[in-house]
C-alpha cells in the first residue's frame, strides 16, 4: 500500500462489507477515491440448476434485511415464465408485503445506521456514535425507530409466517389468503406507526438546517434518476413502468416496460470491486451515471398518491427544489416514503375484498424467459431468468438496486473526500463523513455481489510520472 493512501476498512454502519481507498497526491490533497465491495455472494451461479418454483424462496435468502424485495421480483419473473396473470388480491397482498419491507428497511437505515451521525454529530465520539448513543441521548427517537422496524417486521411475519425469509410469495401469487384476524391486528397497529413516522419527520425537518454543509457536499452532483412510475404519475413500488429523468426534470426515457431493461441499462465490472456498475446505455459508460432509491423515486414521480405523504412531498420540493440532487437528501426522502407506505398499507387492507380467497394462479412453464421488477427499499430491483422446458434454471441475471448506485456512490465518495479530507491531518470525523455519504444510499452489499466467474484483475505498471508502461490482465 502506498504511503499516501488512506484506507477505511471496514466501512461501518452499512449492510455488508466494503472498503474505501483515498489516494492523496504529494501535496496531501485527495487525488482519487474508490468504494470497493469486498464480499461476494454468487447467487447468479448458485441458482443455475435449481427448479423454477424454488426461486422466490432461494432468492429471499440473498439478504436477511430485504428478503421480501427479492421474493417479489423473483416471483414476478416466475409469473412471466408460467404465463399467468396473478389474481388482483394476490397482487395487492404482495404489494402490502413489499410496502412493509420498505418501512422496516428504511427504519433500519435511518434510525440504526444514520441517526447516530445526525443526532450526535459526525465528529462525535465514535464509541458512542451508534444506536446505544442515540438511546442515551434521545430515547424517544430510538424507541420510534425500534417500533417502526417492528411494525414492518410483524406485518411480514403475519403474512409470510416468519419475519425473515418468509416463503409466502410464490409463482402465480401468494400461497394463502389473508384472514380477518391477521388483517385486524395489522390495522390496529397503524395509528401508532403513523404517529411515530410523522414525529420523526418533524424532528428531521426541524434540524435539517444543522446539516447544511453535509447536504452541500455529500454527493451533491447532477445525475439521472430512475424509478418505477404508475401510468397515473403516482409512485409504483411493485408494478409500474420505468422512467429516467435528468437533474432538470427532462425525461430521457418513459413508459419503459421494465422487461426491456437491457435496451436502456448496461452493466460493467471494475477490477477494484465485486459490485457491478450499471449505467444508462444511451449516454454510455460512465456518463450514464444515475441514481435509484428514495431520492430518485421522489424525483421521477409526480406524486406519491396518499394525502399526507403528498403534503410532505410538496414541502420537501419547496425546501429543496423540484429535483434535489444531493445524496444527503436520501434521508429526508426515506422518511417521507415511510409515511407513504404506512398509509398505503392502511388503504389496501381497509378494502374488504382483501380477504378474497383467490390469491394464486397455477400453470406449468409456458415461456423460457422471464423478468421481474419491483422497487426495493434501495431502488429498482431486477430478476431475469432463463429456464428450460422442464423449469430448470439455466441462467440468472440480477440487477440490484445498490449496483445501480455504484457509480454514484463512487463519485460521492470522491467529492466528500475532497471536501473533508485534508492530508496534513486526517481526523476520524473526516473519515466518518466519507462513510456517511455511502450510508445515504443505504447500500445492501449482501444483495449486490453476485456475478460469478473470474474476478477481472488488471495490474497497471506505471513509471514515476504515472505513464503506463505495461498492463497485465486475467
Amino acid at each position, binding site marked *: *500500500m502506498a*504511503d*499516501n*493512501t*488512506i*484506507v*477505511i*476498512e*471496514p*466501512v*461501518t*454502519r*452499512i*449492510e*455488508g*462489507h466494503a472498503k474505501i481507498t483515498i489516494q492523496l497526491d504529494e501535496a496531501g490533497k485527495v487525488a482519487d477515491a474508490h468504494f470497493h465491495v469486498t464480499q461476494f455472494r454468487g447467487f447468479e451461479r448458485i441458482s443455475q440448476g435449481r427448479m423454477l418454483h424454488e426461486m422466490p424462496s432461494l432468492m429471499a*435468502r440473498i439478504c*436477511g434485511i430485504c428478503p421480501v424485495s427479492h421474493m417479489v421480483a423473483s416471483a414476478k419473473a416466475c409469473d412471466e415464465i408460467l404465463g399467468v396473470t396473478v389474481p388482483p388480491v394476490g397482487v395487492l397482498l404482495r404489494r402490502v408485503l413489499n410496502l412493509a419491507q420498505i418501512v422496516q428497511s428504511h427504519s*433500519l437505515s435511518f434510525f*440504526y*445506521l444514520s441517526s447516530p451521525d445526525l443526532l450526535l454529530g459526525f465528529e462525535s*465520539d*465514535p*464509541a*458512542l*456514535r*451508534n*444506536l*446505544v*448513543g442515540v*438511546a*442515551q441521548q434521545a*430515547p424517544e427517537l*430510538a*424507541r420510534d*425507530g*425500534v*417500533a417502526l*422496524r*417492528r411494525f414492518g*417486521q410483524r406485518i411480514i411475519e403475519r403474512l409470510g409466517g*416468519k*419475519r*425473515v*425469509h418468509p416463503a409466502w410469495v410464490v409463482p402465480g401469487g401468494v400461497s394463502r389468503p389473508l384472514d380477518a384476524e391477521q388483517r385486524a391486528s395489522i390495522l390496529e397497529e397503524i395509528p401508532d406507526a403513523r404517529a411515530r413516522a410523522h414525529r420523526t419527520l418533524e424532528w428531521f425537518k426541524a434540524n435539517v438546517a444543522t446539516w447544511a454543509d453535509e447536504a452541500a457536499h455529500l454527493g451533491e452532483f447532477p445525475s439521472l434518476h430512475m424509478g418505477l412510475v404508475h401510468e397515473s404519475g403516482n409512485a409504483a413500488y411493485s408494478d409500474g413502468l420505468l422512467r429516467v429523468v435528468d437533474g432538470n426534470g427532462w425525461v430521457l426515457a418513459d413508459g419503459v416496460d421494465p422487461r426491456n431493461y437491457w435496451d436502456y441499462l448496461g452493466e460493467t465490472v471494475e477490477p477494484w470491486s465485486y459490485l457491478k456498475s450499471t449505467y444508462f446505455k444511451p449516454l454510455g459508460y460512465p456518463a450514464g451515471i444515475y441514481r435509484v432509491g428514495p431520492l430518485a423515486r421522489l424525483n421521477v414521480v409526480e406524486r406519491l398518491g396518499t394525502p399526507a405523504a403528498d403534503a410532505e412531498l410538496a414541502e420537501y420540493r419547496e425546501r429543496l427544489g423540484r429535483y434535489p440532487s444531493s445524496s444527503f437528501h436520501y434521508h429526508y426522502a426515506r422518511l417521507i416514503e415511510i409515511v407513504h407506505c404506512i398509509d398505503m398499507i392502511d388503504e389496501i387492507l381497509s378494502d374488504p375484498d382483501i380477504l378474497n380467497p383467490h390469491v394464486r394462479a397455477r400453470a406449468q412453464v409456458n415461456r423460457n424467459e422471464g423478468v421481474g421488477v419491483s422497487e426495493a427499499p434501495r431502488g429498482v430491483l431486477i430478476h431475469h431468468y432463463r429456464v428450460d422446458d422442464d423449469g430448470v434454471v439455466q441462467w440468472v441475471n440480477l440487477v440490484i438496486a445498490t449496483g445501480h448506485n455504484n457509480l454514484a456512490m463512487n463519485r460521492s465518495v470522491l467529492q466528500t473526500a475532497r471536501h473533508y479530507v485534508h492530508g496534513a491531518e*486526517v*481526523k*476520524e470525523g473526516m*473519515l*466518518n463523513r466519507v462513510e456517511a455519504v455511502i450510508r445515504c444510499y443505504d447500500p445492501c452489499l449482501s444483495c449486490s455481489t453476485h456475478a460469478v466467474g473470474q474476478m477481472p484483475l488488471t495490474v497497471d505498471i506505471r513509471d514515476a510520472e504515472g505513464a503506463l508502461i505495461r498492463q497485465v490482465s486475467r
Partner: protein
Amino acid sequence: MGRETAGARLRGVLVIACGNTLRGDDGAGPETGELLAAELEGTGAEVIVVDQLLPELALDASRSARVVFVDAAADLPPGSVSVRPVNPGKDAPGDGGAESPNSASRVPGAARRSLDPFSHGIGPEDVLRLARDLYAAEPDAVLVSVGAESFEPGDGLSATVRRAIPAAVRAAVRAAEEGAGTASRDDA
C-alpha cells in the same frame, strides 16, 4: 422432556435463536431454535428465530423476565455447548483500550476508530443494553453457545455440530427453567 398441555410455567421466558442458515454451522442457532419452538410449545415461553440480532429485539426482551440467547460460536471447540450469563455492558461499545481492527492506516500516524457494533448486527449484551436504556427493563439472560466447525457458505450443519444440537436444546430448556445459569460446558 414432555410437553405441557396447559399452564404457563415458562411464561415470561423468551428464547432468541439466531444464525445464518446459509453459512454452515452458523445455522446451529436456527436449528436449535426450531426444535425449541416445538419443545416449549404450551409452556408459555416464546421462541424467536432470526438471522441476526437487531435492536428491535430489545422490545421483546424488555417484556420478558428471562431471555435465553442461542447462537453458534467460533471460539469454542466444535460440537461443545456452553452456557454463560449475559449482562448489558456498562461501557460504551468498543471500549477496552485494545487497538481497534477498524483502524485507518495512513502516513503519518494513524486515525483510530472504535469498533462499531451496529455495522452488521449486534450482540446479546447490546440487546440487553437497549432493553435497559429504552424500556427500563433488565431481564435475566444467558447465552447458549454451540461450538462451530465451519462458517463457510453452504446449506447444512457439519456432522459434529449436528450431533451437538440435542445437547444445545437440553441446555436451553434447562436455562429457561433455571434462570440465568453459571458458566458450564457440556461436550456433545
